[in-house]
């Protein structure tokens, strides 16, 4: 990690403890901000948060390790979470899963080498009447069919790289 990047992370955490507070109750909201902006919660981030909240970093680690929406490892810019619970399973989530793996060239639990996409399983997303369902970051897609997978991925790809320039989108 570059020094400048560390400084930025430290500044961010200081800002969040300023708005969210330094009580233990603020721990998860702060970690969610770190996750949202930095894509993961690194050892360094956990140490800084622990210092700010005056708790042991192991306490922070124990919390991060518990929740499935908090991650130690860097995730892709788009995290795709496919619901694997019963109703989506019965509605045909397996074929959607296969197509996602085929189109991205990775398996569930992995991130594409370009760091753009992560594929994860999710427990019930609460879209059981409209399965199979998946989340792309916070956005929900329902009644997903294998042929829709390409469209969903393209919608993501349009926001970065040459596509973004062509579309004058929010390119990075």
């Amino acid at each position, binding site marked *: 990690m570059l020094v400048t990047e560390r400084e930025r992370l430290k500044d961010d955490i200081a800002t969040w403890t300023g708005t969210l507070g330094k*009580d233990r109750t603020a721990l998860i909201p702060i970690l969610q901000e770190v996750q949202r902006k930095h894509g993961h919660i690194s050892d360094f981030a956990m140490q800084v948060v622990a210092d700010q909240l005056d708790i042991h970093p192991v306490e922070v680690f124990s919390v991060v390790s518990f*929740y*499935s929406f908090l991650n130690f490892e860097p995730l892709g810019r788009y995290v795709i979470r496919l619901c694997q619970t019963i*109703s989506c399973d019965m509605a045909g989530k397996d074929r959607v899963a296969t197509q996602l793996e085929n189109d991205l060239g990775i398996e569930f639990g992995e991130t594409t080498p370009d760091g753009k996409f992560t594929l994860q399983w999710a*427990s*019930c997303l*609460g879209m059981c009447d409209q399965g199979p369902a998946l989340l792309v970051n916070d956005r929900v897609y329902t009644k997903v069919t294998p042929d829709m997978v390409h469209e969903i991925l393209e919608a993501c790809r349009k926001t970065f790289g040459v596509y973004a320039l062509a579309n004058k989108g929010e390119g990075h």
Partner: protein
Amino acid sequence: MIATHTAPLTFSTIEKDAGLKKALGMKRSDLIAEITASQLKGRGGAGFPTGVKWNLAAAAQAEQKFVVCNADEGEPGTFKDRVILTDHADLVFEGMTIGGYAIGATEGIVYLRAEYTYLRPHLEAVLAARRTKGLLGANVAGKAGFTFDIRIQMGAGAYVCGEETALIESLEGHRGEPRNRPPFPVDTGFLDRPTIVNNVETFAWVASILFKGAEWFKAVGTQRSTGFKLFSVSGDCTKPGVYEFPMGITVARLLEAVGGEGAKAVQIGGASGHCIPATEFGRTIAFEDVSTGGSIIVFGPDRDMLEVAHNFLEFFAEESCGQCTPCRDGNPKLLECVEMLDNGVCSAQYLQDICGLGETMQVASKCGLGQSSPNAFLSIVKHFKGELMGRG
């Protein structure tokens, strides 16, 4: 997100904030007495009488008390709270405000599951509008001296946090591991202060009951399960979605309404509920018979029940918090047995032993998750044994 219920819910007939204004004109004890008289029971699944819970919290002595709305709807097959929060968020916040007045709290917290993050901007907008209208903040709705506000805290992806003490642990910034009970949250809750934790639907019914009266609510349903209930229906049926029925409806009647005739079984109460075979479709959905937080999953005639059991146990093995041994180690053993059945290498004796383990988990686990996780497996073994044995 579009609501998927097929008919308008009772909630859409409730005049906004009329119940709150009525409540603020009542004495606290009369208000709680009204809720108690309606015999409203918790709509999240556990079915604890709301009036009793509020009375305990109101009687507790403390400088500060809290109202928590459990919007961590994680039970497989449940999505009614998503629809309520989308279409009737005002009613939920109104119910929370009534709760605040009833027990003497100044702060309300909505614990919203991470999977519903997309709902947050909508909910924040509704809260902001309520503040502008003077329905939140100092002197709520002109009631001198009653201050109450609501904030939203996001969950971070853990099914067990739907259990109220685990939810409180999570709100406090800890791992979502359930606490020993007693003490109960009504006297030792969030930050060790008296706290009422109620389901989204329960709060919406509270506001409705205040507006329409306890008698109106009590006139519907059965003697021991009063009122209406929202059901989340999914699986092998032609019309999945959210439905509202009086408590005490039979499984058969419900299946007819949702286009699920011909089903061979129905899972009532989600993964932690029970699997009811076709021979028992005459049973009623009520706290005294088959109880549910609203999840109804229909299994058609061609559905492989072993696959169903497999899916449920994968879910529990993943979502067990790992704190107590029966649940942490029991669920993987049950899952392993399902895999053995699938491979055709499970003896009848071993299956019987594993069912014994399931029964042990029901009594020895610390919280509702481990106590109820073997339910589906045990009921599938009981009713569909012939389908499970001799594979391979």
